[in-house]
């Protein structure tokens, strides 16, 4: 097995400026594998953000060790660390009055001298980063002209221009619409595959994380952190036990979460293919329990383009639902 690029040994994270020290999470043992996309999932207040900040060196660990490339994180100089780890944070960028190119070029500050003058190599790195993110045509735009998703991409481009082997992202998909969220995730995936960058991101998008990440770190208050491939965590029931709430259950068959608002009313059907999937989805949403055909239980069939509930025709899913409720 490869040596992990980051290893947490019995790590406690939290805030030193509280008295007594506020421990957010203790006893963490996790590993980040080189070149993998790892998603950090957890409930609100579990300490995802605190962990990212601690790993980035913004705040000290309360106890335990963080090993980066086998060496203690705190033994690295500011300069060296700047060339090893890039970050994308939830902090808003203060100045809107910068061009995309300027902001991405700030990523080269990890390399430039006293005045921050860019060399030809620096300019090349900035252009490559912009191309990699697919926004070379944005270079001269001002930040205030961009959408939230585009801004997030610019911040990722900054991290790429920084040329680090690790990128840590704190909720990069928060506040974005679904297409942008998927786009950002695919982009991060691409970075790991094409450039061998190790990516760790915290997110609330469990569905997306399950589909796209190599590994998942699970965090919850007062619980041991867990680490594994999405599939292993699903099969061992970990995903369910970390996120199980009464109304929400992780469906092992579909690999996604399902709202449970069961009223207990039973219904059966003899549909197949796509109609079966979507009708079942609608029935589950309305709280029906789908059972095998039983006398006395409404039975849905189809013929041509129309549905029937026990011989009563229903033109579409909406009519099925309204007739079952009636």
């Amino acid at each position: 097995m490869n040596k992990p690029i980051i290893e947490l040994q019995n790590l406690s994270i939290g805030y030193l400026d509280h008295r007594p020290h506020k421990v957010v999470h203790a006893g963490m043992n996790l590993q980040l594998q080189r070149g993998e996309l790892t998603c950090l999932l957890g409930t609100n207040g579990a300490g995802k953000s605190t962990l990212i900040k601690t790993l980035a060196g913004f705040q000290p660990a309360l106890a335990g060790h963080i090993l980066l490339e086998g060496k203690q994180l705190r033994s690295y100089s500011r300069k060296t660390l700047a060339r090893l780890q890039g970050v994308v944070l939830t902090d808003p960028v203060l100045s809107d009055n910068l061009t995309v190119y300027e902001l991405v070029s700030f990523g080269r500050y990890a390399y430039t001298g006293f005045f921050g003058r860019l060399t030809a190599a620096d300019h090349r790195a900035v252009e490559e980063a912009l191309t990699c993110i697919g926004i070379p045509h944005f270079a001269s735009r001002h930040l205030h002209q961009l959408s939230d998703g585009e801004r997030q991409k610019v911040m990722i481009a900054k991290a790429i221009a920084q040329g680090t082997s690790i990128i840590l992202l704190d909720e990069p998909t928060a506040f974005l619409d679904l297409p942008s969220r998927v786009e950002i995730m695919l982009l991060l995936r691409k970075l790991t595959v094409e450039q061998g960058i190790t990516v760790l991101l915290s997110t609330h998008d469990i569905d997306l994380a399950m589909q796209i990440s190599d590994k998942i770190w699970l965090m919850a208050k007062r619980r041991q952190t867990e680490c594994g491939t999405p599939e292993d965590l699903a099969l061992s029931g970990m995903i369910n036990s970390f996120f199980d709430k009464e109304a929400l259950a992780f469906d092992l068959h579909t690999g996604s979460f399902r709202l449970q608002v069961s009223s207990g009313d039973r219904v059966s059907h003899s549909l197949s293919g796509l109609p079966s999937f979507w009708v079942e989805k609608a029935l589950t949403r309305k709280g029906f329990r789908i059972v095998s055909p039983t006398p006395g239980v409404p039975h849905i069939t189809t013929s041509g383009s129309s549905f029937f509930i026990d011989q009563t025709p229903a033109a579409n899913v909406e009519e099925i639902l309204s007739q079952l409720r009636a």
Partner: protein
Amino acid sequence: MLSLTAVLFTLNIAYGSVTIPLSAVLELLTGQDIGVSSWTQIILESRLPQAATALLTGAALAVCGLLLQTLFQNPLADPSILGISAGANLGVALVVFLSGGTLGNLAGLGAGGHFALVISAFAGAFVVLNIILYMAGRLRSNLMLLIVGIMVGYLASSFITFINFYSSAENAFLFMLWGMGDFSGVTRQHLPFYLIVVSVGLVAALLQLKPLNALLMGERYASNLGIHIRRTRITLLVISGLLTAVTTAFCGPVSFIGLAVPHIARLFLKTGNHKHLLPFSLVLGGAVALLCNLLTTFPGHAGILPLNAITPLLGAPVVLYVLLSRKKMGNIH
């Protein structure tokens, strides 16, 4: 911009209670003898030092305002608003009171006396800066920080009033005059000292381009890029403390130039990049100060208006405009 500043500089020398023809001014400035000894006397002893002081003070205040706006991540940061000039005032008032003298005769002590003034102003400014900085660490909200700054400023002003109450009437009056701001406080003898201290501050500010730009992304991003945040904060505070202190000690608390000039510069350049913004603010600050100084000798009136009556006239509308158009611009920096 540079040529505009040069024009304003020349006009500053030509206009005043005694009007000197522009041609004579230009001749004298290029080293020729203009033959009228009273004109030469006025220009060399009074107007030239005053114009130079205005140029330097404006540049210093504008740069100071820009540094503080970036450091505090607040568009309203400025030496006078955050109470830093009030702190410098208090330092000066304390020294004047404790030494038992008057502002006039302390200034008369020559470079040594001025050095004491600058040191006391610096100490006062630095104490306030540190209070603000400490609060900045504790209070995440910029609005709260601003309120703290204003309150600290009031406190300092209140102490100054106490000091004035117990000092001589003449001294209190001089102090009041000084508080109105005046570019004529630097005599020809003190000009080299003033020039050196302000230049040191300005050059030091120009050396901070990279950390200033990194701070535009926020402290954490800057830190991730290898910028030493604590050191940068202290460096920026010392530079702005020095510039505020030296200008306040000599010219009194000049308001609004530090606040407004960086905003005007941003409006002109449409960028937050300090590589362009800092040098531009520096020159623009000098130009604005020269313009204000010119307006104090308003034509048609023999007397001279206090400087702080003019600067808000120019500064306040700019700041209002910037704040009101904020929605359009998104963020202000």
